């Protein structure tokens, strides 16, 4: 993904191999299989260019990181249960805000801030 993100234009498998050469000695078929898997996972887009596929990123690096975070956090919430919480949150993301109560608390906080505490 790093190689694909570094290049803004679509890349054939051979070009990806060329950029990976410095790091390791991966076989052409290994890279092709990996790119195919990344395409099937929705991380890459591809289209035919002659007889070969060319690949490009389906999302930016930031978008990818954001998706990883959101799916990881959603997974954490699924694993967590009433009997077995696996995380301690500052505020429950399931919070139901009661508007009247929130306004009362905000007024209380404003008073405290005015008194310097």
């Amino acid at each position, binding site marked *: 993904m790093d190689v694909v993100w570094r290049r803004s234009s679509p890349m054939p498998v051979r070009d990806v191999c060329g950029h990976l050469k410095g790091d390791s000695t991966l076989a052409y078929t290994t890279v092709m299989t990996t790119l195919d898997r990344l395409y099937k996972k929705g991380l890459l887009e591809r289209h035919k260019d002659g007889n070969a596929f060319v690949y490009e990123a389906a999302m930016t690096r930031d978008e990818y990181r954001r998706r990883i*975070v959101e799916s990881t956090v959603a997974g954490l919430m699924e694993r*967590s249960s009433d009997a077995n919480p696996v995380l301690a*949150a500052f*505020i429950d993301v399931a919070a139901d805000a009661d508007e009247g109560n929130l306004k009362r608390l905000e007024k*209380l906080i404003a008073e405290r801030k005015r008194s310097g505490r």
Partner: protein
Amino acid sequence: MALSSLVAFGVVFVGASLVLSVLFNLVLLACTPALRRLGPWVERRAAASAIILPPVIAIGLVAVLAVGSALAILRGSDHCLDHSHHLHLCLKHGMAWASRPWALCLVISLATFVAVRSALSAWAHWGAQRAAARLRAVGAPIDQTGCYLVPSQERFAFTAGLLSPTVVVSSAAWHALDSDERDAVLAHELAHVAHGDLRLRAILGLAAALGFPFLVNRTLRLWELSAERICDRRAALAVQRPSTVASAMLALVRAAPPKLAPEGAIFAAACHVPERVESVLREEPDGERPSRRLMAATVLAAVAVTATCGLFSEPIHHILETILG
């Protein structure tokens, strides 16, 4: 001695644990208003004691009875042959208990329940550990705090991971807070790490499996709320302004996304927010010193109970035999 000989001792353990759990949790329930006045540390330690002590004392009782029986067998003064009118709590003759369906069912059911619950807990925490590692890899360290900022449009801040607790704050939450509020949120989460809250909660969850269901669940909620209030207090001390902690809570509640998790799935339940805000603004004592005295008294009481069981092991042995047999 066959494994089935232990069924009788299993019955004593289950019975003692449940009875003590009811007793301890009812006392805690009655004392809650007084404990609230003493501070969250007192509530936290009292709640933890009410959950952990019943199975620990029950283990102590079983150990005393088993050692007594073992010594009697070794000395050749096993009393079992003198009593033919009921079953005996004995490592040698206890096997007869395994032929009692209710005793066997009780012990097997509880052992299965505890094993399944432990396995589910281990599985969930293993997953959380991996998730925390993934968030660390994707996130950016926040200065030298050991906390991580992760890109997300959802607003959250939490600590996850049992073995290496990781504090994670989303970029959306970060940008919704001012500089002091950010420090308050980080101080709150780092207090969870410093107090080992996730580990303690996991231990309490397992111990609660051996307690009386409805009462221990209520006590667990009390422990969670007091843990949050302690961390709020630590955060207020760190930023020197309790109102900053309170405004950080409200800023995140205001921006709460649609429901992601089932209620109670994480420490800070929604209904706790007003209580926590009011508590932190009141600047009430945290009660750490009285809680230490309470812990010392609790440990002494537990030792005294176990020692009494040891001193009067023979009459207790016979009473239990008569009741259960």
